[in-house]
């Protein structure tokens, strides 16, 4: 069942970040070297020693979506807004409903339902299309050719289109229920989930009010809103979570467990998160200066980064714009210490090697590394050592960056937002700068743009993430034309 040779591509992306709540605004700000960090105001942190971080500006969502979200849980708004962008770019919106939301034919007939009456957007049922003389493509732009055209061309829908609904006759002949056929999975990751809702409940002796202790709620919410009948999973691997969700999502495509995967991470600033992160002594009261000799710690932020993954064949068949190929996934643990990285960067070096091996890409083909680059003394020097170990002398010809210098550390979303920045780097041929770097550190001597974006032909990017507990994830993305 598992087909490790199946190629996985990205066809949709969405972000909610301190530098913008859509892909274009976010990317323009990154390339311009904007600093998205400042005083946090969305959450009362007045009694904390450090109140700097990166918060997202107001998220605008249509009323019908807003009405389904908890007003107390900002993290839900971030996830749903990022998912909306990603599924719209991938063309899953509406299209998605026609694959996962349609009741089976028998049920529709029994209930006398027209598809459109029930589901708003999407394919009208065959009978209605015929009665109205509609061609699907005439009416709906992209998607399924009308039945007559398929019959004339002798096409089975699935033979031609991979990722769409088989024609009614084929479904009946194969005894398929509509919902059995095409699956969109949701894979989210988070460190703190709904911790923002726990203030009135944790540490108190009063009856439980409205705090949500569960981690899976956001994924369930996404499945409910978009009527997705695939599996959904939630992962938590501290600060490498977001990248892990994308890597596991790709594995679900390869193993045939899903046709599409909505994958990524999210986290919101909360008093609970701040209470702990403050005590870890990793927050700086200076600027966040990754790879600078005088770097003194990181700053935490909130947001979400979501991608849509599907197989290369599926994307080709439905004429999707392939943004990049996700060709390698490395994941491990340093097996060393809860809060400190291993001294020589061995763990992250091994995930880079594992991801390159899976991708079948040699280290000399790597054009760019989007680093974890937190701005802590230990991370940045060990990660530099690890990159040199993997890329060898070529490392000095491979520009790196830490976009955390501009957006901060997005906790469970960091890995997925940085993966999206990596894809944007490939698409636009620009490497975003690492800002606030004023005093070079001889231990962090790899090349990187520091004021504005560097124009470069980038075909292959490694995106690194590490986290508390010692876990590491590396993802390798490749340019679509090379896919």
């Amino acid at each position, binding site marked *: 069942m*598992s087909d490790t040779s199946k190629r996985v591509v990205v066809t949709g992306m969405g972000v909610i970040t301190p530098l913008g709540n859509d892909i274009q605004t976010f990317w323009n700000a990154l390339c311009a070297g904007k600093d998205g960090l400042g005083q946090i105001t969305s959450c009362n942190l007045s009694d904390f020693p450090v109140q700097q971080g990166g918060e997202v500006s107001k998220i605008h969502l249509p009323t019908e979506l807003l009405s389904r979200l908890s007003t107390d849980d900002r993290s839900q708004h971030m996830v749903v807004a990022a998912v909306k962008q990603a599924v719209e770019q991938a063309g899953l919106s509406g299209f998605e409903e026609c694959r996962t939301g349609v009741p089976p034919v028998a049920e529709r007939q029994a209930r006398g339902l027209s598809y459109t009456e029930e589901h708003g957007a999407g394919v009208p049922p065959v009978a209605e299309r015929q009665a109205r003389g509609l061609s699907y493509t005439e009416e709906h732009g992209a998607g399924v050719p009308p039945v007559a055209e398929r019959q004339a061309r002798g096409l089975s829908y699935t033979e031609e289109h991979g990722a769409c609904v088989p024609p009614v006759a084929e479904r009946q002949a194969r005894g398929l229920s509509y919902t059995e056929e095409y699956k969109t999975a949701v894979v989210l990751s988070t460190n703190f989930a709904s911790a923002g809702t726990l203030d009135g409940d944790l540490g108190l002796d009063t009856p439980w009010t409205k705090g949500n202790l569960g981690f899976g709620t956001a994924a369930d919410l996404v499945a409910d809103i978009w009527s997705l009948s*695939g*599996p959904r999973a939630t992962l938590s*691997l501290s600060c490498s979570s977001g990248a892990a969700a994308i890597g596991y999502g790709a594995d679900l495509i390869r193993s045939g467990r899903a046709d599409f995967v909505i994958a990524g991470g999210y986290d919101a600033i909360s008093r609970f998160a701040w209470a702990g992160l403050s005590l870890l002594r990793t927050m700086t009261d200076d600027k966040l200066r990754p790879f600078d000799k005088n770097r003194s710690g990181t700053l935490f932020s909130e947001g979400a980064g979501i991608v849509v993954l599907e197989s290369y064949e599926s994307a080709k068949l439905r004429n999707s714009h392939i943004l990049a190929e996700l060709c390698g996934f490395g994941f491990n*643990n340093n097996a060393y210490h809860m809060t400190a990285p291993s001294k020589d960067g061995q763990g992250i070096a091994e995930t880079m090697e594992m991801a390159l091996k899976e991708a079948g890409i040699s280290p000399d083909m790597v054009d760019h590394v989007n680093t974890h680059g937190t701005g802590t003394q230990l991370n940045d020097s060990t990660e530099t050592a690890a990159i040199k170990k993997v890329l060898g002398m070529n490392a000095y010809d491979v520009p790196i960056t830490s976009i955390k210098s501009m957006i901060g550390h997005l906790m469970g979303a960091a890995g997925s937002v940085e993966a999206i920045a990596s894809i944007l780097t490939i698409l636009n041929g620009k490497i975003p700068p690492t800002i606030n770097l004023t005093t070079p550190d001889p231990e962090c001597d790899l090349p990187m743009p520091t004021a504005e974006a560097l124009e470069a032909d980038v075909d292959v990017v490694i995106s690194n993430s590490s986290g508390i507990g010692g876990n590491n994830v590396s993802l390798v993305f490749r340019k679509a034309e090379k896919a």
Partner: protein
Amino acid sequence: MKRVVITAAGPVTAIGIGQECFTEGILEGGSGIMEIAAFEHGKYDAHVAAAVEDFDVKDFLPTPKNYLDRNTELSFGAFSLALKASGIDLAKTDKSELALIWSTAFGGTDTMNLFYSDVQKKGPRFGKPILFPHTYSNTAISMLSIEYKLNGPHMNFVSGWTASGQALAYGYDLVASGRVPVAFVGGAESFNETVFRFQSSQKILSPGADETACVPFGRTADGTVMGEGAGMLVLEDMEHALKRGANILAEITGAGIAGSPGGLKAAAVEDAMSKAIGNLNATDIDCVLASANGIPHMDKAEAVAIQKVFGENKLTTTIKPLIGETFGAAGILQLHAALSMLERQFVPGIKEESRIPEAENLQIPDEGCSKNMKTVLLNNLDPAGNAVSLVIRQVKL
């Protein structure tokens, strides 16, 4: 595709610690559900739980620890038991080839509450730095990695009640696809007042006052009972296992993961079961170990799906009346129980006078009974709409 076998098990449950004790517990049929002793339960609308008693983490720790959350303690128990049973000598093994896949629904809730209590009552500066790293939901897996120097593929599922079922399916995929020869797959869920307060607010707990509070498929069922536990299974490429002379407990022949939007629907359960059955026939499955736990809409969806896939009169049972609903550990403990059933050719019973109409056409024994079985299908479900199924089969060498 590699054949994937189970070569060791390490359950920590209210009815027994270690696979032998756990199996005996299932055969005896005494419930682990008791009145809650850990805290004053009078102010809540539920009063019983299946907590793990007589568990001392010191028995399972290779090196002493200053502080551990209960979730991590249970994880160490399960890991240590299964590792010992597996006969794998980590000192002589390339650990980068061993995957560690862990799971929990709620993680270190006890420590979360303890840590945040100081912050709430005294202020942020009074939170104890030593506690915070133990509040993460990946604390248990991280500490296992560090303790046993496991630097291979590493993944932590927190998907809710199906977290450990999904972890098993992923471990199965990693071994079946040849990416690793061995995967340690486990999960843990601790019982404490914080999770209990939360679950009580979710209105899923039975108000029953004794061990009869959990009546899966029962007409009078009014909720489930919280359980506690952990488990770990060693999943191994069959060739690898044979080569090292490992004791093969069973083969996993398939795993299915599925979901339904808007709460658990029979279609999701049907989908997961069909995928787990895979190339086998439904008639090859001798018994279904259901996820049923006394939450009416879940039990109903599952009963409908079982009938849809297997037809009438399918032999079906559950162990939830013995160990309660263990959330993030439920899937892994289901698989441990399925191993016990195959090993002893035994089907536990569900004491209940009257069952829901959807379950009336299932063959559910009232009392535990012997049965010749080669293949068992087990389910792991959650109320939000997630479903996982696995099929295990005896291996005749």
